[in-house]
């Protein structure tokens, strides 16, 4: 793995490795041990295609977890379809890829843009925000989430009005103007869909502005869930992170997720990841489907995948006809955390969905739940 996203790519691989180790310890699949062959996706779509070509034509891989990036997913899909390679996506969230014919051999276990939108809708409901602002990096997935959000608000009975929405180039680092506009329009809440470093750049500047730092903000798909990032924001603006919520695209399953993270802690030294659980689930689901099909023929396995009803550390997975996970209560929802500072330490408290929440979202100004 290379590049700035190598650590999260490693976690995908490690999640898959844990599943393979467990399956092999129980006799493998169809009596054979599973083996992982990995390739670095690299920094461009051409390196991703090259990696897929090596895996399929040289290593004769039939089942693939990944690629990681949506752009790379789109680039390799025709090649994988042509070779009938069964692909399971655990990171890329774009829904529009999941259409015929290419989704015939493509399934998604990880985050989905409906799920990302649901996180925002749940947050607006929780904070009783009468108005909100939607900000995203200017990529396909954030436009999808925007449309799904507007569709879901009435569906979930959430009465929150969009004041304005804006998209920023993925290479942007300075968000002063966006934050000034938020300060000027003063919404009840802000939804931010920026992945990776963009969300950290944004939130540092957001909490620096005295006029915005007290407006609750939800960051979806952010590395802020990692303690070092949250601490860097806290160091830049002490107390500034008080009104920050995190929308994590992975689910929490009591007893199952905790057990999984005990394992990652033991094996790899981390007890929180939004990438490893879905990769683990992807391998387990795939192995179950191969076992169910009784063959490694990918057409038969793809049919068997549709019978999946699996609950693992990343959530409860049942596939829709588009091969994306069913989104909603009891299925995949994602998780909303409120960042809370207690005695100088930062805690991510689980505030949604309600059946796994261990904390009620509070307004730091009053110490009471939002009204």
């Amino acid at each position, binding site marked *: 793995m*290379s*590049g*700035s*996203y*190598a*650590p999260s790519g490693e976690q995908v691989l490690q999640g898959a490795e844990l599943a393979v180790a467990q399956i092999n310890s129980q006799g493998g699949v169809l009596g054979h041990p599973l083996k992982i062959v990995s390739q670095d996706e690299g920094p461009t779509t051409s390196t991703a295609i090259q990696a897929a070509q090596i895996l399929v034509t040289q290593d004769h891989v039939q089942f693939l977890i990944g690629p990681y990036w949506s752009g790379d997913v789109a680039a390799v899909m025709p090649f994988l379809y042509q070779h009938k390679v069964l692909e399971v996506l655990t990171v890329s969230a774009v829904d529009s890829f999941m259409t015929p014919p290419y989704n015939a051999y493509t399934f998604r276990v990880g985050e989905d843009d409906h799920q990302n939108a649901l996180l925002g809708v749940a947050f607006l409901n929780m904070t009783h925000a009468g108005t909100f602002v939607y900000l995203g990096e*200017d990529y396909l997935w954030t436009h999808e989430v925007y449309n799904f959000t507007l569709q879901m608000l009435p569906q979930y009975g959430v009465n929150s009005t969009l004041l304005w929405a*804006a*998209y*920023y*180039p993925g*290479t*942007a*680092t*300075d*968000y*002063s*103007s*966006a*934050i*000034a*506009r938020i*300060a*000027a329009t003063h919404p009840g809440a802000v939804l931010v869909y920026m992945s990776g*470093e963009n969300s*950290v*750049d944004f939130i*540092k*500047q957001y909490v*620096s*502005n*005295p*006029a*915005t730092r007290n407006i609750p903000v939800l960051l979806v798909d952010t*590395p802020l869930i990692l303690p*070092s*990032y949250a*601490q*860097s924001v806290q*160091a*830049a*603006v*002490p107390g500034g992170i008080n009104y920050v919520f995190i929308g994590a695209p992975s689910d929490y399953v009591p007893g199952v997720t905790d057990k999984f993270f005990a394992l990652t802690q033991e094996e790899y030294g981390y007890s929180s990841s939004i990438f490893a659980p879905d990769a683990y689930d992807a391998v387990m689901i795939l192995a179950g489907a191969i076992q169910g099909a009784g063959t490694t023929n990918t057409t038969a396995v793809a049919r068997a995948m549709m019978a999946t009803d699996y609950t693992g550390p990343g959530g409860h997975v049942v596939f829709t006809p588009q091969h994306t996970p069913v989104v909603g209560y009891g299925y995949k929802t994602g998780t909303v955390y409120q960042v809370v500072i207690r005695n100088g330490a930062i805690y991510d408290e689980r505030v949604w969905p309600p059946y796994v929440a261990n904390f009620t979202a509070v307004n730091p100004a009053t110490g009471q739940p939002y009204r």
Partner: protein
Amino acid sequence: MPTAFIFSLALSGLEYGLILGLMAAGLSLIYGVMGNVNTAHGTFYMLGGFLLFLFSVALGLPVPAAIAVAVIASFALGMAVIFVLPANLRIAASADDANLIMIAMLMLAIAVEYLLDMLTGGTTLPVPSLAVGAIAISHVAFTYQGIIAAVISAAVYAALAAFLRCSRIGKAIRAYAQNRELAEALGVEGSRVVALAFGIGVALAALSGVLLTPIYGVNSSSGWDMLVIAFVIVTLGGLGSLYGSLMGGVIYGIGYSLLSYYVPNYTYIILLAAIYVIIILKPTGIMGEIVEKF
């Protein structure tokens, strides 16, 4: 839209542009003296942030001292890079030489990125600020770090201009940039001037890095976007012109600030298209012809 708000946005852009212009000035200085574009310039911006993190967080120096050490270390690093280059490539005598240096610097940039990637795991480092806090003017936040950074940038511009205008070494650099043969005939030693100019250029990039990365953070790939911005600014202001870099930085910063308010997703497209038109109308850049080199 209230005038005060637009004024504040422009002021925010001015602050951003002053710091960016400083990095562009380094690029311009190197181009003026060496005759080639330093494609590793963004890497030195990024290294500034890493060095500040190293000296302040890892080694425990106070932030102002860490900034000074990071900039001095970058200056020394810049000089060292020049002495590692083959003598015939230190000054581009032909287009082929210029291309070779550009490629060599590009290789250096990629190698450094991968090296730091391995050392840090690709993570963004929390670089400490000189000051914590902010004031808001008409809804626009001005962090103390940003204000101090802009003031330092303005002071460094003034000091650099004075150095190039008034000091003996500065005059030698300008003379060499304007006419190499004549300057050498008058006793200016080319390789020393080149090393010095490259060191100063790198130090300016690193200074931008130490001033901006506390606001934005830094990781091993942070330099690439900044390299493109620096290219745009020097092209706009005029290659080889210090004042041009200042002007270019300010225009870019204010333009970015206003455009990203009104049409955020088209900011870069409009900005780059406008700059393209300016270059078509005036190929030497805004200050390219009316100001002598530096």
